[in-house]
C-alpha cells in the first residue's frame, strides 16, 4: 500500500551525498586529502570482520532509538524521550542482571523483557498525559528524560555500587550479558552482541505492525488525521498511549542492547546520546523501519570509523561528527530537497510533456495556488 518510499530514499541519499560533500570540503580546508580521509573513515568501520562487528554493535542502539522515534512519529507524536526510555530500559536490565542468579538462557529473555517494559512505562506516562490532558509530548518526554537521569543517579550508587567507583554500577555477570562467545569469536572479539539480532527482529515486527495489521492502520490514521480517525470510530486516545508505549519499549530494548550488550555496567550522570541520535536516524530513514535500519548502520560506520581516520591521517575526529551533523541537517531540510526535485521534474515535464497524473485537475489547482 505504500508507494512513496522510493522518493523518500532518494531524498535520504541526496542528504547523505551533501553530508559527505561538506565533509570533503572541511577536510580540504583543514589541509587534508578528502579521498584518503574517506578511505580511512570507511575502512575504520568496515575493513575487517572485527571492525564490522563493532560497527554493527554501535549501530544497534541507534536502530532501536531510531525505530522508537519513527514509530511514534507515524502516530503524529514526537518522541524526544528515547534517551530516558533507553536509560530506564538499561537500568531494569542491569538491576535484574545484578540481582537474579539465574542461568543465561533463562536470564536473558527476562532481562530483555524487563528492558522493554521499563521503556514502555516511560513512554506510557507522556502518552497518557497527552491523551488525557493534551500535555504536549515534547515537553513531557524531555521531563521524563531527566526523571530517568536522576533515578539512575540515585539508584545505581545506592543499590548497585561498583567495586571502585561511586559513579558506576558493578559489572554485570557474564550470564546477564547479551554478548555471547560464539558471536564474539566469529567477529574476532568485537562488541557485537545478541542485541543486533533483537534489533532486526524489532525492525521486522514494527514494519509488520505498520504495514499489515489493523493496529498499524489505526495508529497511522490517528497520526495522519486525528479528526478523520475519530470520525471512523477509532479511539485516538487509546492509540496515542499505545503508540508511545511501543515507542518506549523500542528505546528500552535499545537500553538493554547498550548497557548489558555493548557495555557491561552503567555510569551515572549521562543521558545516552543514542537517544537523540535516534531522531536523526528516524529522519534520515524517512520514518520507515527498514530505512531506520539502514540509516543506523550508516551512522554506525561513521561513528566507529572516525577513530581510525584520526589515527591514520591528520583529519580530526570532529570531521566525522561534522559529516553526521551535515547529513542530519540535509535530512531535516528534505522538504527543500524535495521541492527542488519537484521543480526540476516539472521543468522537464513542461519541456517534453512527460509524466503527469491522468487526474490532473486537482494537481493543477494546487500548482496554480503555489505559484501565486
Amino acid at each position, binding site marked *: *500500500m505504500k*508507494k*512513496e518510499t522510493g522518493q523518500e530514499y532518494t531524498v535520504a541519499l541526496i542528504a547523505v551525498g551533501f553530508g559527505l560533500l561538506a565533509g570533503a570540503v572541511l577536510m580540504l580546508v583543514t589541509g587534508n586529502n578528502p579521498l584518503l580521509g574517506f578511505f580511512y573513515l570507511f575502512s575504520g568501520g568496515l575493513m575487517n570482520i572485527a571492525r564490522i562487528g563493532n560497527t554493527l554493535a554501535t549501530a544497534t542502539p541507534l536502530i532501536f532509538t531510531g525505530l522508537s522515534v519513527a514509530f511514534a512519529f507515524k502516530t503524529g507524536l514526537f518522541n524526544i524521550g528515547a534517551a530516558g526510555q533507553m536509560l530506564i530500559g538499561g537500568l531494569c536490565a542491569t538491576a535484574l542482571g545484578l540481582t537474579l542468579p539465574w542461568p543465561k538462557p533463562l536470564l536473558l529473555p527476562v532481562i530483555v523483557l524487563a528492558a522493554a517494559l521499563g521503556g514502555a512505562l516511560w513512554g506510557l506516562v507522556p502518552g497518557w498525559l497527552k491523551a488525557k490532558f493534551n500535555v504536549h509530548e515534547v515537553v513531557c518526554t524531555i521531563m521524563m528524560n531527566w526523571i530517568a537521569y536522576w533515578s539512575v543517579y540515585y539508584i545505581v550508587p545506592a543499590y548497585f555500587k561498583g567495586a571502585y567507583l561511586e559513579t558506576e554500577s558493578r559489572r554485570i555477570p557474564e550470564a546477564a550479558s547479551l554478548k555471547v562467545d560464539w558471536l564474539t569469536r566469529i567477529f574476532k572479539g568485537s562488541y557485537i552482541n545478541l542485541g543486533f539480532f533483537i534489533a532486526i527482529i524489532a525492525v521486522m515486527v514494527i514494519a509488520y505492525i505498520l504495514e*499489515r*495489521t*489493523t*493496529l498499524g*492502520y*489505526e495508529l*497511522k*490514521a490517528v497520526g*495522519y*488525521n486525528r*479528526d*478523520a*480517525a*475519530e*470520525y*471512523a*470510530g*477509532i*479511539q485516538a486516545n487509546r492509540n496515542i498511549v499505545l503508540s508511545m508505549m511501543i515507542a518506549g519499549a523500542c528505546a528500552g530494548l535499545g537500553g538493554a542492547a547498550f548497557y548489558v550488550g555493548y557495555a557491561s555496567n552503567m555510569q551515572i550522570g549521562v543521558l545516552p546520546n543514542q537517544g537523540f541520535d535516534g531522531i536523526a536516524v528516524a529522519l534520515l530513514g524517512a520514518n520507515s523501519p527498514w530505512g531506520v535500519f539502514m540509516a543506523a548502520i550508516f551512522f554506525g560506520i561513521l561513528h566507529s570509523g572516525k577513530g581510525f581516520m584520526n589515527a591514520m591521517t591528520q583529519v580530526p575526529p570532529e570531521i566525522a561528527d561534522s559529516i553526521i551533523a551535515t547529513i542530519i541537517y540535509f535530512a531535516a531540510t528534505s522538504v527543500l530537497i524535495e521541492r527542488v526535485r519537484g521543480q526540476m521534474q516539472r521543468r522537464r515535464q*513542461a519541456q517534453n*510533456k*512527460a*509524466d*503527469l*497524473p*491522468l*487526474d*490532473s*485537475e*486537482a*494537481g*493543477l*489547482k494546487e*500548482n*496554480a*495556488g503555489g*505559484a*501565486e
Partner: protein
Amino acid sequence: MEYVVEMLKIRKEFPGVVANDNITLQLKPGEIHALLGENGAGKSTLMSILFGLYPPDQGTIKVRGQEVKISDPNVANDLGIGMVHQHFKLVHNFTVTENIMLGMEMTKGLVIDHKTAAERIRQLSQRYGLNVDPDAKIEDISVGMQQRVEIMKMLYRDAEVLIFDEPTSVLTPQEIQDLMAIMRNLVKEGKSIILITHKLKEIKAIADRCTVIRRGRLVGTVDVATTSEEELARMMVGREVSFAVEKTDRPPGDVVLKVENLSAYDNRRIMALKDFSLEVRSGEILGLAGVDGNGQTELVEVITGLRKAESGRVLLKGVDITGHSIRERIRMGIAHIPSDRHKHGLILDYTLQENMILKVYDQTPYAEKGLLNREAIAEYTNRLMTEFDVRAGQGASALARSLSGGNQQKAIVGREIDLNPELLLAVQPTRGLDVGAIEYIHRRIVEQRDKGKAVLLVSLELDEILNLADRIAVIYNGELVGLVDAKTTNEHEIGLMMAGGQRGETA
C-alpha cells in the same frame, strides 16, 4: 478592441490524455464570461495556461489584440490578469491591509506604509462596493469577506481581467447574492470576468456569455440570455439531464432517529443547539435547511457521537445511544457523509483503498485476526470506484490527496452509502460535484429511502433539499423554527424561516 483576452485553438496534452483540444475562448471587455464544464473537463487546465502555469502545445493567446507568451504567473499579473482562487491564500493573523500588500509592500523610508495602502483599499472598496474593513484581521472575518479580500488583492494589483475559480462553493446563499452584486459592480467599472463554475443557476443569474467544454473539447459558446438551463446542462454533460429527482410517494415507516430536547455547545463553548427535537422515519428523507452555522454541524456531530450532548437524548430505533461510542453507533447503522471532506471524510495521506475501508478496516473480509487483507481491500475499492465513478490516475492505490475534489466526494459518498445504513446523515453530499454526478448521488440517496432506510439530508442548497426531501425542517440559531411538507411548501416560505421567521408545525 473587440476582445480583451483571446485564447485561440489551444491544445494541451498530458501523457495519455488530451486536457484541452482546440479550445477557443474569447473574452469581451466588460463581460462576465462563464466557463462551464464537468469536473475534469479541462477548465482548470485552460485557466492554468492563461495564468502562465503551463505552456500550451498549440494555439495562441492574445491580450488586448497583442499576441503574448505567458511563461509564468508574474507575466499574467503584469498583463492585468488576476485569479481569485477557490481556496483562499491569506495569512490568518494578518490584517486585511497586510494581506493585500503582501508581496508589494509600499515603504516610507524603512517602514512599511500601512496608511497609504489602507487608504487605497478603502477607496477601491467604496468604488466596487466591496465593503472591506482594511484593519480587520482575517481570522475575525467571515468566509465571504475573506473572498472579497482575495478580490481586493487583484484590484489592488490593477487586474483588468479577473478569473473566479468556483467562487460560490464556499458561500452561503446570502453571500452568493452579495458576490453577484460585486461582480456586477466590477464589470460596470470596466473589468472583465471569467467565471469558472458548474452551477447553471449562477450562470443564468449573472453571466453574459458561456463557453462550454466537455472532455477537453469545446462544445460551444452561447449567449446566456437565450439559452435555457436545460440546454446548458445538455451541452455540459452530453445527454439529457433531469433536474427533478424521480421519487415515488411512499408512506414513511417507523421512527429510526429520534432526537429529544438536545442541547450542545459549539467549539467556542457557545450554546449552538438549543432544546432541539426531531424525528426521522424509515423510508423518508428529512431535509434540514438553514444558513450555514446555525447548529446543523453540531446536531450531526451529536448524532454521530463526535460531539457531546449537554442535555437531551438521541435514540436510534428506540435505543438510547446518547452515551454510545462512535464505533458503536456506526455498527448500529449510522453512516455519515461529512461536510468537510478533508477534515473528517478522508485521510489525505492514505491511499484511496485505505480510505475506502475507513469504517470497516477491522471487519472480515478486509481484516482477519488483526491482519489486513490487501486483496479483499483492493477488490472492494475497485468495485466502489466503478459503481460510483471515482476516477484516480493510479487507481485504488492513488493517494487520496491526488484526487480531484469531486472524485474525493464521490469516494466518500460511495463508502458511506455502501455501508447500507439504517440512518444516513448526508451533509452537503453533492458539494463540489458537477450535474452528472449530482444526479447520480441524488438517485442513490433516494434509493436508500426506497429501501426503507432513513435519511437526514443537511444542505445549504435549498434546491437540493426541495428536490430530495419528503419533509423539511428548518433550523435557525440552534432552534427548530419549522417543519413542513416538501410538497406543499416553496422556496420563499423556507427562505423566510431560514432567516428566523416562525411558522407553525404543519407536518
